């Protein structure tokens, strides 16, 4: 449904995107992750035909965004970051105008606007001028705008900005429902728990370069190098700590935190973690609990992005 192949974008000497490829299938939600300036918004602006790529191709519903821009735009609902609408228009006027712009008759436009105003809990704001709306309400109007023409693909740039926790819940439910109806959804976000909760797959960008692409489970397997182990010993916690810190220890722990008899051990690799249990047996340590902590999206994100930020 949404397909990007080797998308590259240069702003003068600045490389905003470098050969970024990904695809979003119908019914799938792809989370675009990356620190500020990673190129997420640029990629989304290219997909909605607002910006041209320097090189590479992209398709929406099989339509090339350059060769069949108008048809591609018909299949897209786009919510820009910091959505803005003409302040002089009322909410209903704006949505009816946008619906007509997307090809609806005035009667259809009224019906479409009414449906989404109701669905997004904006029915009591119909007559309110857009200039007087809060950021969260404006964001909901923007979302209604994106959904007006029942697009096959949704491109949402930081859609959770300005929404309160209840609105986020509603919004998440709505997006999942739309995905179930077969819409391809691509959204960017800085809010990692939102991505974790919502996305079927994540695409991590940093300095315009793809760092990772896959489902959370796949990425956890691939990038669990720094996963931690939580264990509680019956006794000898101090002895164990000492032995783990020795240079000849096969575990090569990156970091160890001790709280009473509970130790959290961060290992540098999967291989090192495999050696932990035999090592504990060799040291004749009695275990009360052994728990492998799966890395969160935040851990993965740090692993993928932070070393490069530090460099």
């Amino acid at each position, binding site marked *: 449904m949404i397909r990007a192949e080797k998308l590259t974008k240069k702003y003068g000497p600045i490389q905003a995107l470098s050969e970024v490829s990904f695809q979003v299938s119908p019914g799938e939600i792809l989370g675009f992750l990356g620190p500020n300036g990673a190129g997420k918004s640029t990629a989304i*602006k290219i997909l909605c035909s*607002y910006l041209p*790529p320097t090189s590479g191709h992209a398709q929406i519903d099989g339509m090339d965004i350059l060769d069949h821009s108008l048809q591609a735009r018909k299949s*897209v609902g786009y919510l820009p970051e*910091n959505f*803005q609408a003409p302040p*002089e228009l009322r909410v209903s006027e704006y949505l009816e105008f946008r619906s*007509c712009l*997307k090809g609806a008759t005035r009667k259809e436009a009224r019906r479409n606007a009414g449906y989404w105003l109701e669905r997004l809990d904006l029915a009591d704001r119909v007559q309110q001028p857009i200039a007087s709306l809060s950021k969260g309400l404006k964001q909901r109007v923007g979302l209604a705008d994106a959904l007006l023409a029942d697009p096959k693909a949704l491109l949402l740039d930081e859609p959770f900005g300005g929404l309160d926790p209840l609105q986020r819940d509603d919004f998440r439910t709505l997006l999942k429902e739309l995905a179930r109806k077969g819409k391809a959804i691509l959204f960017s976000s800085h809010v990692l728990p939102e991505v974790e909760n919502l996305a079927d797959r994540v695409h991590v960008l940093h300095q315009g370069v793809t760092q990772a692409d896959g489902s959370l489970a796949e990425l956890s397997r691939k990038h669990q190098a720094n996963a931690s182990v939580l264990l509680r010993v019956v006794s000898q916690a101090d002895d164990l700590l000492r032995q783990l810190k020795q240079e000849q220890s096969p575990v090569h722990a990156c970091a160890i935190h001790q709280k009473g008899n509970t130790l959290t051990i961060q290992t540098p690799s999967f291989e090192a973690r495999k050696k932990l249990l035999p090592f504990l047996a060799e040291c004749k340590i009695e275990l009360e609990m052994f728990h492998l902590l799966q890395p969160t999206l935040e851990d993965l994100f740090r692993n993928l992005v932070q070393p490069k930020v530090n460099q």
Partner: protein
Amino acid sequence: MRAFAALLRKEVFSLFVSPYIYLLLGTWFLLNGLFFSFILGYPAVEQDLTLFPQFLFGSGLLVWLLLPAFPPLLTLKLFAEEQRTGTLEPLLSAPIRDIAIVAAKYCAAWLFFFVFWIGVLLLFLLLEFHQAPLDWARVGGGFLGAISASSLFLATGLWASSWGGNLILAAGGGACINFLLLFLPVLFENSPGRVGALAKSLHIPNMLDRAFAVGLFDSYALLFFPIMTLLFLWLTWVRLVSRRWVP
């Protein structure tokens, strides 16, 4: 067509509810009223009132000052203001042809500027009410010339407005082009050779003063303004599509 009509309705509405536009309209009426009464006091006009349209539409301050300066002040809202406020992005990512965007915005500006001219027409009707001996062929020709010239200056203003989100650049740039279109032919009309000939063929004040304002329908002048208007609308369209196509 639906998208064009929707955008046209929205643009006309946005212009009609803007306080800035009413300030512009008020200033236009005030200055036109002043020029009107000023020209009525000319000795030549006092003797022969049929000359009045020629002084107003042909060689007066209306042509040299208001006509080039006001249209860009109106058109700056159409692209530059939209880009500055961030509403251009949703518009350009909507499924509407770029040519329809340019046409809808231009038509909205043109319709609104027509209101500006209705104010001037009312002043003529006031004279008629006082039984002044007006030559309506000259008045009609003068209006046709003024509306043709303002159509061109609105197109240049729209082009300048499409350059970016800087309102001063949009208004200043548009006004500069308009003043150059007026003054350059005057400066070079006596040059020898092709430069002089070109200056004469692009001489807007001559077309207004010696054709339209005297009630003469010169086919060259009648075609000149629409062609130049289309040229600047085409440049606006090129500017718009280049954002989408030029990497």
